[in-house]
């Protein structure tokens, strides 16, 4: 990177030395522990590798098998996209909306409410309580409620019915997703210059919605971008809630996602080459979606 212009290398170093030195510790750790493993994984995606024998180069075979012959993978892609299209935008709006609303509360109440909303994220595997809610007998909270209201007569086998699996996963994910972006938005709201609100009031900003649109949102552009990237990676990376709640494999693959497919080949079948190909496809899907979203956000911003 630094050697791009060989003639001026000395000048570049002289001018920017301190910046490179500030970045040095990170670059070393990043290259060794993030960049190299990612590149190795991409290379492995062109091999057949069972963790015991040396990887064998197989060209594009993993990719061809995945896209042309693996019908379960196509179900996984479909499920993942459906899941992401719903949970991504909704949880983004939810995170921002909640952060923005509690920003108005008095400081002490605000601190308590932040904890309340963040509770699902901080309590580890707490999403397992959804298993109680959607328990398949008449004592499960959802079944008990519906039966008491007389809407259903027999308890519903929630996790055994392919029509219910995806909606349940979406609800649980939304409930769980008030996390990183939410905290970043709260911190971002603290960064908005208070005097702008004051000036806004004098300039005739009539209500909170106008204030949000003309002052708050433009001031929070970097955090909004950060939140978008987080939502994309999180909403496309669903796996553990699916495996833990609806089981693996799920009924008719209704809860099967790209990452549960990866989990299948990487952790159960030890076909690492194939697993790496899945990871690489997901990687490029995320980059592609990210580019589109960034363009969209920029358009909205201008």
């Amino acid at each position, binding site marked *: 990177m630094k050697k791009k212009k060989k003639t001026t290398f000395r000048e570049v170093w002289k001018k920017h030395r301190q910046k490179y030195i500030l970045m040095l510790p990170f670059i070393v750790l990043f290259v060794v522990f993030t960049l190299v493993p*990612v590149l*190795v994984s991409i290379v492995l995606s062109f091999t057949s590798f069972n963790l015991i024998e040396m990887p064998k180069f197989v060209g594009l075979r993993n990719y061809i098998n995945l896209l042309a012959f693996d019908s379960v993978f196509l179900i996984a892609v479909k499920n993942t996209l459906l899941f992401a299209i719903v949970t991504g935008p909704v949880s983004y709006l939810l995170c921002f909306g909640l952060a923005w609303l509690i920003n108005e509360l008095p400081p002490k109440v605000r601190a308590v409410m932040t904890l309340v909303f963040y509770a699902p994220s*901080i*309590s580890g595997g707490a999403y397992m309580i959804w298993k109680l809610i959607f328990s398949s007998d008449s004592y499960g909270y959802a079944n008990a409620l519906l039966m008491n209201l007389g809407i259903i007569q027999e308890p519903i086998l929630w996790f055994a019915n392919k029509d219910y699996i995806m909606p349940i996963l979406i609800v649980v994910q939304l409930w769980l997703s008030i996390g990183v972006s939410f905290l970043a938005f709260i911190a*971002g709201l603290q960064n908005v210059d208070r005097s702008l609100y004051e000036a806004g009031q004098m300039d005739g900003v009539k209500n909170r919605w106008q204030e949000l649109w003309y002052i708050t949102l433009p001031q929070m552009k970097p955090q909004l971008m950060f939140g978008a990237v987080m939502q994309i990676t999180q909403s496309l990376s669903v796996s553990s809630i699916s495996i833990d709640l609806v089981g693996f494999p799920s009924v008719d693959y209704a809860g099967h996602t790209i990452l549960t497919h990866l989990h299948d080949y990487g952790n159960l079948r030890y076909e690492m080459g194939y*697993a790496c190909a899945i990871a690489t496809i997901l990687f490029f899907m995320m980059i592609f979606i990210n580019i589109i979203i960034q363009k969209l956000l920029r358009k909205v911003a201008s």
Partner: protein
Amino acid sequence: MKKVFLAVRKGWRKFKFKRKNRSLAMDILLIILLGCIGLVSIWPLLYIINAAFKPMSEIFLFPPKLFVRNPTLNNFFDLSVLISESNVIFGRYLFNTIFLTVVGTGGTVLVGSMAAFPLAKYRFPGSKVMSSTVVYSLMFNGTVTAIPNYIIMSRLNLINTYWAVILPVVGGTFGLYLMQNFIVQVPDDLIEAAKIDGMSEYGIFFKIIMPLSRPAWITLIILSFQSFWGNTGGTFLYSEKLKPVSYMLSQVINGGIARTGAAAAVSLIMLVVPVVVFVISQSNVLETMATSGLKG
């Protein structure tokens, strides 16, 4: 020099002013909305707290009840017996956790912020490539990189040391990316003024960038603490003496149905520390209004 410090200090002062453009009806409506969402969110917290104080008869009560009727401390006594029976003394586990969490979180914040500052505020050869590499590497799933990572660790003789847990996180891009998006907002004028006063980039970083991006790094501390606290060491730490508390406690949970009570106590203990750290840190995020009065 004086000018810069005065500006920073002015920014630190809390800004008090009442907003008049709010309608009461909408306030009430929004508070009701917040309350409803809050009720759904608070559930796991209530569940974990109640379960820890339930006697065995209530834990296995069917259908399950959320609230405890006859609270007891038995679960905690059971747990303390289990802990005292363990081969490695509890203090050792605790030390491991504290070391991992403090060094790991400190490293993530410091190393990430140091790299984030030049990337956020300057254009120089390599900066653009680096910025996009950072974003994109957030998107590669960790499941498959675990294997190359393990091989690298063993080549570097880092397996079964604390560093095997700490370094990959510090070398991850999440912290940098978060910091970068906040440091971008530090006013350029301030950096220019500091430069005119003869401050080095290092000085600017420690005296201007870090104080002004306090909400960001406190948020990063919360997130990083949480992940290190829950880290069990996995395959990277195999010696019992290096295992953290979360590993020891997860062993209790895996101990079978007879330990359900102790496991409920474990869940509460595992939760209390991050919650306390969260509340302390979060109140600090909310109290700083770092850049107010500096922009525009």
